[in-house]
């Protein structure tokens, strides 16, 4: 489409035009000066647009205001071109003012990507990046923007948590370290390593999310080894009227699936079978001592006496109190966002406010967030621009999880006794019911707990055009968080181990961090060469102050009474911290493009971190990349099917210094009331001190190098596209706080540099959309990510060295060693169940006193083949790393109807189902069991899956073994949305969208635990993959309505 030139001509302009034309005619005969404004689709001025005379050499480009001036003859044709925009050809004719509106070329090419400190056209990028389609991803009812990355960005593994307010585990391209594998977040001008920040950002404010996966992240040097997630928030459009948008949804959520537990009758039978298996005459304080167990009518109290709250609580046993049913309920979910955006001639703005209230699917859990945002950008003069992003949010989290308690509690205990109090086994009267406080009582007593946070996050910048092509920018970002956690431990008189005094814990913490970045940017095009240079200096300071005060013994238990001052006992400072660290960096980035088809880029960054001792505290991280856009070459240019073909390669070094302590280079001693004081003189307490953390003065950067080769292919006007990246990422000198040997002092382990880990992988994303002019529109996109994680070497001096994961109650489950992936499960391998004592006698010895004891018990593999089964026969039982993860998104539209489907899955990973130690082996004998024990071995059930039940755990069955390791693959319908668009012009409403949506509607998996998305790492990736009784994800149904006017 050509704009009508005459349209722009107003009579007022004619006089000067004539004057100018004349003067130019006079001086240059056949040439004239032509000037004008180049704008984009929404009338925003476009900067750096190339203006050329067709077939000639004269060229110009638009300035910061979008204006250009060029000298041309009336017969010339001007070419206006810019990557991503359709080139326009306009004959000069007699005009001296040519205002041009450029329209985007094709959808994918319009995209600019926010990369380190600047933006770039997606077409010209040479790094491996995953840009998330925020329109699709953020349309789902999520609380945490990190959830939006799941299945939508290739190379990014996301495990979301069911606990309201929890932070998903995000890992980019595998596990590069045994230390901290969390990415760096750039939110507008602020850098943050704390993943919880995403819970405090309103997803609706997010304009774009881009993940830097390869060495292109190297501009962030020291903190970039785990990838960088760049989030930019929305802003307004200059010269536009205010647009008001209201997005809202309301819905409910439920538990998606619950493992089946025994009812009280079945449990009694299992008890009887257990006694008989162990040669004991069955007798149970609740089930009697007859030939068959009898479910009692009352578990406590004397039903023939009147109710007495102290001595004679009447507690009726209910048949089959399934505690998993009792702790889950339907939670209400609501979300309202209001935003206003627009702009004047020189400025643009966005104001937004949001409210979300999500009740968890477990009783008395939830998340509330209030958020506001103000983003303003303005051009103060022709050469100076400034702006700010500011978000203030408040969140209130009530996190509790009683999944494990629900499995361990006795089904005989009802919710309440006959006086309406919580029922329990009671001190000394309700034997055979376990010592657990019921999960219902636990959750209820925690309902007044809270964890409230204020977070102020924002940045302000000023940008000055020093020269025409040289721009200086100074940006200052801050993040301030005030956190207030209040936890009450209430009395539990109904418990066999009652809590007798009320206790209150209050944690107050302030976390402040700021980033000050100053950059100089130079962009210039000389004919076919275009360069872009960026240099900068940056300082980061992070500061934490925390105090945790505990007081015991309160007169009343009312929520309103419980403040620290009303406690009777002396206060105790359970924890107090003041931590600071700084980072000081210099960086440079250069980009070069020849003929817009041969691309090269180079970055280098030098970081200096306060976390390391002088001498080890600085690191230099270089990287480079090359790209070749083949589709611009003559031999492909005339192949209409291929709209884009780009080859890319990058290589670079990145660093990691994420350590949760500020001074890991030195030994830390402290005085500690709890662990270093002693009554050396009878009747008094003396102050003592202790070594609390071991330091390592030689600690230095963890370094990873990454090679990435990829290509992007677009076909048929980019309706179909494919991106493939292969990478090899190697990390050496991993920073590890490996658990100390058990013979060490009771101090925190030192951080050390050791070992080498590699991640080799492939990221694939492909998409297709049908012809845009059809009535029925559809598109589909798929991305698949696979990585092979391998600990190449841990300790060159000791090839048998390994790292241990967290110690669970029954031992260490995970191990990491040479040639294996991080955090594989290590234990005994079950190869069957012994059927006869002859079989036991013939097999390698498992330590049974006599062979008959082994019948019906697990038979373990004799790994070392020495004829004895012992701890040396433990082996690798599988690992939590998937063969691949994938996401499939499909959009279908017919007229005003839109249907979105999003599937997500993981294939080939294993999960260690830790709660089986309780539900299958009865580590709490009187607790409930899984229905799996109905298939335990007996004389008449010889092809059982589970060894025979017993009164105590024998034959090492509670220790890590292959029974706990399960296939964790799953395919899940993450989201299904049906929307209808319409308008109500009479009411001034431009656009209304109404939709119904369901998330996590179904899951196909063989995993028998609560939820196959069980990747919580308990703070350490050395324990990745162990399900310790997680809070499951909810199934959500929502109804939404979005307006804009």
């Amino acid at each position: 489409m050509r704009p009508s030139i005459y349209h722009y001509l107003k009579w007022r302009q004619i006089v000067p035009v004539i004057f100018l034309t004349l003067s130019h005619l006079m001086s240059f005969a056949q040439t004239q000066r032509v000037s004008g404004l180049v704008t984009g689709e929404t009338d925003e001025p476009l900067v750096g647009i190339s203006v050329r005379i067709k077939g000639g050499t004269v060229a110009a480009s638009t300035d910061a205001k979008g204006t250009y001036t060029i000298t041309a003859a009336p017969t010339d044709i001007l070419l206006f071109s810019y990557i991503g925009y359709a080139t326009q050809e306009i004959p000069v004719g007699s005009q001296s003012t040519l205002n041009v509106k450029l329209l985007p070329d094709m959808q994918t090419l319009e995209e600019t990507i926010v990369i380190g400190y600047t933006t770039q056209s997606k077409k010209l990028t040479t790094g491996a990046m995953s840009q998330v389609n925020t329109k699709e991803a953020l349309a789902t009812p999520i609380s945490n923007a990190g959830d939006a990355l799941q299945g939508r960005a290739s190379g990014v593994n996301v495990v979301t948590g069911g606990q309201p307010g929890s932070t998903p585990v995000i890992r980019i391209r595998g596990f590069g370290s045994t230390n901290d594998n969390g990415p760096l977040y750039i939110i507008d001008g602020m850098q943050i390593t704390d993943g919880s920040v995403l819970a405090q950002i309103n997803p609706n404010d997010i304009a774009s999310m881009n993940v830097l996966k390869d060495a292109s992240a190297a501009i962030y040097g020291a903190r970039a080894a785990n990838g960088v997630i760049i989030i930019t928030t929305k802003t307004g459009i200059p010269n536009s009227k205010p647009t008001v948008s209201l997005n809202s949804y309301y819905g409910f959520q439920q538990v998606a699936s619950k493992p089946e537990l025994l009812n009280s009758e079945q449990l009694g039978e299992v008890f009887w079978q257990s006694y008989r298996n162990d040669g004991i005459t069955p007798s149970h304080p609740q089930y009697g001592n007859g030939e068959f167990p009898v479910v009692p009518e009352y578990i406590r109290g004397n039903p023939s006496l009147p109710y007495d709250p102290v001595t004679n609580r009447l507690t009726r046993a209910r048949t089959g109190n399934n505690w998993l049913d009792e702790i889950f309920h339907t939670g209400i979910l609501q979300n309202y966002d209001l935003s206003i955006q627009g702009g004047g001639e020189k400025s643009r703005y966005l104001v937004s406010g949001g409210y979300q209230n999500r009740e968890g699917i477990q009783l008395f859990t939830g998340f509330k967030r209030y958020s506001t945002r103000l983003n303003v950008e303005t051009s103060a003069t022709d050469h100076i621009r400034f702006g700010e992003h500011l978000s203030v949010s408040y969140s209130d989290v009530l996190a509790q999880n009683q999944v494990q308690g629900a499995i361990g509690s006795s089904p005989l205990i009802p919710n309440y006794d006959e006086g309406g109090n919580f029922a329990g086994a009671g001190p000394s009267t309700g034997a055979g019911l376990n010592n657990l406080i019921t999960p219902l009582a636990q959750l209820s007593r925690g309902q007044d707990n809270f964890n409230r946070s204020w977070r102020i996050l924002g940045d302000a910048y000023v940008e000055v055009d020093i020269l025409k092509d040289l721009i200086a920018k100074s940006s200052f970002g801050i993040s301030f968080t005030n956190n207030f956690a209040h936890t009450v431990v209430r009395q539990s008189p109904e418990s066999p181990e009652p809590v007798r005094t009320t206790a209150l814990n209050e944690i107050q913490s302030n976390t402040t961090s700021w980033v000050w970045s100053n950059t100089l940017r130079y962009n210039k095009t000389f004919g076919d060469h275009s360069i872009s240079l960026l240099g900068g200096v940056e300082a980061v300071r992070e500061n934490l102050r925390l105090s945790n005060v505990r007081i015991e013994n309160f007169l009343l238990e009312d929520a309103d009474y419980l403040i620290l001052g009303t406690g009777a006992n002396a206060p105790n400072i359970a924890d107090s911290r003041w931590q600071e660290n700084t980072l000081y960096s210099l960086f440079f980035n250069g980009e070069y493009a020849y003929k817009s088809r041969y691309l090269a880029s180079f970055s280098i960054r030098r970081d200096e971190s306060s976390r390391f001792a002088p001498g080890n505290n600085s690191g230099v991280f270089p990287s480079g990349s090359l790209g070749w856009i083949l589709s611009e070459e003559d031999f492909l240019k005339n192949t209409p099917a291929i709209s884009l073909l780009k080859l890319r390669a990058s290589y670079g070094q990145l660093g990691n210094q994420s350590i949760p302590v500020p001074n890991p280079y030195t030994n830390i001693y402290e005085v500690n009331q709890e662990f270093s004081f002693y009554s050396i003189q009878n009747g008094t307490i003396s102050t003592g001190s202790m070594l609390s953390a071991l330091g390592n003065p030689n600690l230095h950067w963890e370094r990873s190098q990454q090679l990435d080769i990829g290509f992007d292919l677009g076909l048929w006007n980019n309706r179909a596209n494919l991106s493939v990246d292969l990478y090899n990422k190697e990390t050496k000198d991993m920073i590890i706080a490996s658990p100390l040997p058990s013979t060490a002092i009771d101090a925190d382990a030192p951080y050390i540099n050791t070992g080498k880990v590699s991640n080799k992988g492939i990221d694939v994303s492909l998409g297709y959309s049908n012809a845009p002019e059809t009535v029925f529109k559809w598109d589909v996109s798929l991305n698949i990510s696979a990585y092979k994680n391998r600990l190449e070497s841990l300790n060159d001096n000791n090839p048998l060295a390994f790292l241990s994961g967290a110690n669970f109650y029954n031992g260490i489950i995970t191990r990491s060693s040479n040639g294996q992936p991080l955090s594989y499960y290590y234990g005994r391998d079950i190869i069957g169940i012994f059927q006869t004592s002859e079989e036991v006698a013939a097999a390698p010895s498992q330590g049974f006193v006599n062979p008959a004891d082994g019948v019906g018990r697990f038979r373990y593999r004799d790994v070392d083949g020495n004829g004895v089964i012992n701890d040396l026969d433990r082996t690798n039982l599988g690992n939590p790393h998937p063969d691949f993860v994938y996401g499939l998104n499909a959009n279908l539209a017919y007229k005003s109807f839109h249907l979105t489907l999003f599937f997500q899955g993981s294939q080939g990973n294993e999960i260690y189902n830790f709660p089986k130690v309780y539900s299958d082996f009865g580590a709490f004998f009187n607790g409930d069991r899984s229905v799996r024990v109905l298939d335990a071995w007996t004389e008449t059930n010889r092809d059982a899956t589970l060894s025979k039940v017993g009164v105590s755990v024998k034959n090492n069955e509670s220790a890590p073994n292959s029974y706990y390791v399960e296939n964790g693959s799953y395919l899940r319908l993450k989201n299904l949305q049906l929307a209808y668009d319409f308008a109500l012009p009479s009411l001034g409403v431009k656009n209304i969208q109404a939709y119904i949506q369901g998330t996590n509607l179904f899951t196909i998996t063989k995993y028998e635990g609560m939820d196959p998305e069980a990747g919580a790492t308990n703070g350490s990736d050395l324990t990745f993959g162990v399900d310790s009784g997680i809070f499951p994800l909810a199934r959500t149904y929502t109804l939404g309505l979005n307006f804009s006017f």
Partner: protein
Amino acid sequence: MKKKIVFGLSLLFLTLSCSKDFREVTPKGVISESSLATEEGVNLLLIGAYSMLDQMRTGINNDYYSTGDKFWFDIMSDDVHKGADNGDLAELFQLSNHNYQTNNPFIFDEWKGLYAGVNRANIVIAQAALVEGADLAPQIAEARFLRAHFNFNLTRAWRDVPLIDYTDLNDPNKPNDGPLWASIEEDFQFAIDNLPPTQAESGRANQWSAKAYLGKVYLYEHKYTEAAAILQDVINNGPYSLLPEYNDNFGEAGEAGPESVFAIQFQNDGGQSFNGNRSFLKPLAGGPLNTCCGFYQPTQDLANSFKTDESGLPLLDTYNQTDIKNDQGLPSFEADGVTPIPFVIYDGPVDPRLDFTVGRRDIDWNGFGRFPGAAWIRVQANGGPYVSKKFQYRAWDYDANRGQFGQFERPGIHYQIIRYADVLLMAAEAVIESESNLSVALDYVNRVRLRAKNSTYVPTIPGVNPTNYQIEPYPYFPNAEYARKAVRFERRLELATEGHRWFDLSRYGADYYVNTINTFFRNEARTIRGLENLTSPALPKHVILPIPLSAIDLSNNVLHQNTEWQ
């Protein structure tokens, strides 16, 4: 234009000039290593080392897994049942039943607690070496005393354990090549040579406590001659004596008194009672103070051992042929608030120490009145009819000692690691084994018995038949074999439920251990139904604990499993 350039350059300059102060951040709220290299610093670290006597290390998984007062070792012996509900602390039940495995969390945390203690002592020694111009030999001596204490507890429980010296702070991964007897002896000898005979502060080790402890070490090494010499030195020349009242050893009255040779000085400071006994699971379930959790219940076997003949001497061989009458299975006295349940207490002759040790039906429980039976017991069917009494609250001093944290009691009752009666009995054993000096042994044993005889007995509850207390000194020891048996029996009676029994059984030898425990399992099933099927037979390997599996894992297999446990 100039202004803009100045702007740009000044920004660069501002950030480029980031000072050293910005780039280096010193730690806050901590003590620097250099300031601890002073006498004051060493003293602070020494208190930190004493603080590990209760084995509460940072990062402990459960307070009761690791134990200064060795309560769970008693549970492995014939003195005490685990108590509570069988399913509650199933891992402890497995220890009690001798069907535990190498991954038992109690075994692991006990190990780690003791090594934390060894290293806390090592830090004192290492820091003291950095101090110039001050004589820190006394501090080093106290640290070495403590280190020997921890190493002794490691060696006697696991035998083959690694030696971690003060130079190994940064590399504590050492093979477990054997018992540490040489190092323990050396440390105690250093303590004897460098400590004053008395200390102003009651909790500190002194020369005499070091001698008594070294005597105990010799006894475990079967070095009876050396043991006899040094223990007799303590008896003849040391400052200790028996308290007139036996029962005062287990409460406020005996704390830091003349019978206390070396103790963990627990203290029920306000707030969270960090310095109280934090692994304390012994209190009654409910009861007069409404306490939790009712673990640690004396066995019928222990109660029976207090039976005497008419002449007031113990029934060394026959004590367990019949049971002292108990109320197992009976409802509590006045359990329904209406009817007293008829129960007639045992009327045969018993040692008066029975009722200072074992809480039983219708006898006063530590001044809180009549013990009613099942109502104060968590699960009588599981743990039996008895509760413990030593180192428990007493009605007359519980205010001074009670410390509470949530459901747990953290009392300030001192635990006697070595008390003088123990010294006398160890000396008696040493002289019998070394020189067969039966008359000296007889004298030591009888001093212990006479003190018990002359103590004030537990008063009879009105309306209850009085107990027939009989205790007399041995008239003579006819031969060494009898004397040995009598001394071993006396140790059990005098020191029952004080954390010694399992170690004594184990050092008497594998045969003795296996025979005693298996006999006990058999007999005890008379009282606790099904016990023989819940337990596994004791085997010779059970005289030591397995090296914890997680310790081996964390050592990258530098540690190896004890041969018996492979």
